[in-house]
């Protein structure tokens, strides 16, 4: 990978920060920056082919409708889905998981058995299930983590001895970067008759996604964490499950026939896509996927893994720094840490005045913070445009910050 060439495709890096520094952007677990191809695709859509999809018989509506069909197919291939109808467009992971929780537990289909989530989940893959279980009067349990922050597989197996309706886990933690063995988690869930939902928010930009290899029932990701725009995401579900599932939302575009007494719904994927889709977002997401495929996900992974190891090594050399969690494999390039005597927000503010963007706080993962016995931590998360020089610079400034605050 040519790092210079990659970075030159991101216009945000072509300017200085308000304090006159180069932007060192290390908050990619929150959202990634956008390359020209994504920005141009969105602008071109509005400039040259804007119309609603699936409704008009005129150009440009016909062109847009065709593009959505093509993009759905491309996304299905990107995630390894068997059929394009298994790809449902959403507004992002939070939107998808809330709708999914309601569709699974809120309708006329009564489900039995506890709901399990792991202790490393982002609130968006925790609270919707917690609330759905409460409304359905089902037990809600958290799969414990090991001391290193990985899912405790023995505890998971033990929990699955009780009747279980659904298991929700992330492909990788947004705090520790620890990845989960989804295939194994899935096999164990299925052996207990439970559905498996995977939040791939953190994984999608950093490792290949193969939903059939994972054998999950649902998988969700947001475009904006993979160089795409905000407000667009994908919910994958197996055809067999999606076709039986209550619609995620109701409205125009998803109905077959509406009568005063009842309404029938269209086939997949339209059954789950009520209202006008975020078409500019879909077009932007396609450009983002094309960007990733052009670099090659294996190349991105190799580059980020090398940087990840360098970052850990450099941080471990700093006195008072304690990195949260570590597993042997399946890592995403995210490192969170505490610094003795320095609050994460003070650290983040110090680095921000040097043009370095890191994140401080609980990262929407309060159960995980409690597991580690902390309230907040600092987080550095990498992307394909990150460099070793940026890591060196960040750790140097981090040492300066420690000297300043202690």
């Amino acid at each position, binding site marked *: 990978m040519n790092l210079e060439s990659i970075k030159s495709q991101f216009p945000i890096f072509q300017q200085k920060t308000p304090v006159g520094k180069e932007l060192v952007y290390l908050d990619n677990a929150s959202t990634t920056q956008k390359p020209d191809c994504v920005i141009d695709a969105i602008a071109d859509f509005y400039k040259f082919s804007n119309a609603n999809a699936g409704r008009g018989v005129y150009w440009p509506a016909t062109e847009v409708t065709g593009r959505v069909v093509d993009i759905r197919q491309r996304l299905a291939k990107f995630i390894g889905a068997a059929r394009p109808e298994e790809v449902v467009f959403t507004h992002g992971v939070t939107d998808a998981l809330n709708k999914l929780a309601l569709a699974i537990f809120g309708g006329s289909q009564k489900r039995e058995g506890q709901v399990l989530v792991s202790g490393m989940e982002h609130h968006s893959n925790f609270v919707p299930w917690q609330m759905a279980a409460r409304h359905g009067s089902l037990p809600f349990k958290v799969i414990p983590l090991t001391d290193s922050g990985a899912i405790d597989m023995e505890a998971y197996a033990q929990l699955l001895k009780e009747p279980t309706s659904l298991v929700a886990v992330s492909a990788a933690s947004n705090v520790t970067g620890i990845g989960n063995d989804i295939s194994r988690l899935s096999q164990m869930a299925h052996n207990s008759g439970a559905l498996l939902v995977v939040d791939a928010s953190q994984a999608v930009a950093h490792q290949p996604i193969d939903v059939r290899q994972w054998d999950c029932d649902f998988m969700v990701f947001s475009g904006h964490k993979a160089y795409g725009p905000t407000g667009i995401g994908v919910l994958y579900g197996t055809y067999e499950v999606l076709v039986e599932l209550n619609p995620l939302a109701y409205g125009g575009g998803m109905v077959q026939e509406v009568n005063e007494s009842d309404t029938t719904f269209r086939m997949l994927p339209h059954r789950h896509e009520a209202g006008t889709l975020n078409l500019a977002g879909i077009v932007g997401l396609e450009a983002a996927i094309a960007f990733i495929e052009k670099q090659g996900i294996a190349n991105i992974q190799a580059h980020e893994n090398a940087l990840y190891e360098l970052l850990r090594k450099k941080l471990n050399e700093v006195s008072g720094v304690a990195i949260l969690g570590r597993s042997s494999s399946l890592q995403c390039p995210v490192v969170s840490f505490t610094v003795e005597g320095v609050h994460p927000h003070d650290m983040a503010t110090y680095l921000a005045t040097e043009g370095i963007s890191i994140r*401080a706080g609980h990262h929407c993962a309060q159960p995980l913070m409690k597991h580690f016995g902390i309230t907040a931590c600092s987080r550095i998360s990498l992307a394909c445009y990150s460099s070793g020089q940026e890591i060196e610079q960040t750790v140097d400034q981090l040492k300066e910050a420690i000297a300043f605050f202690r």
Partner: protein
Amino acid sequence: MNKALQSLYKEVILSRAKVPRYECKAPDLVPTVEAYNPLCGDKFYLYVSIEDGVFKELKFSGFGCSISKASTDVMCDALSHKTIQEGLLIIDTFLELIDDKSSVSPEQLTDSKELLAFAAARDFPERKTCANLGWEALRLHLQSL
């Protein structure tokens, strides 16, 4: 170190955060007020004793950044031995002092060096919720009395 940092982290703030005068580590008291920032998880417990409408003693415990800890410490100092009405005025003054939307300069609001140390929060609006954490919580409590 650059000027922006120097203006935000004045000596008053750094020293108050390192050695707070009103922090109690292992309180036996029941907190009067909980000051919590759900965005970052910072949390202080305030222990406020009021006698005959006058603040007799203010203490705090908890976890927060330099700015939130120092500002809570300064608040305890500023309100000690003041009446509730005087306290509310000081709180309002401080909250305006850190408000980047205020048209009044910090120096016009107060001549207290301790309070003015936080005026640079106007240039760091993302840190306003740190500076006002204890103050907003106590104001809400006092208004409910």
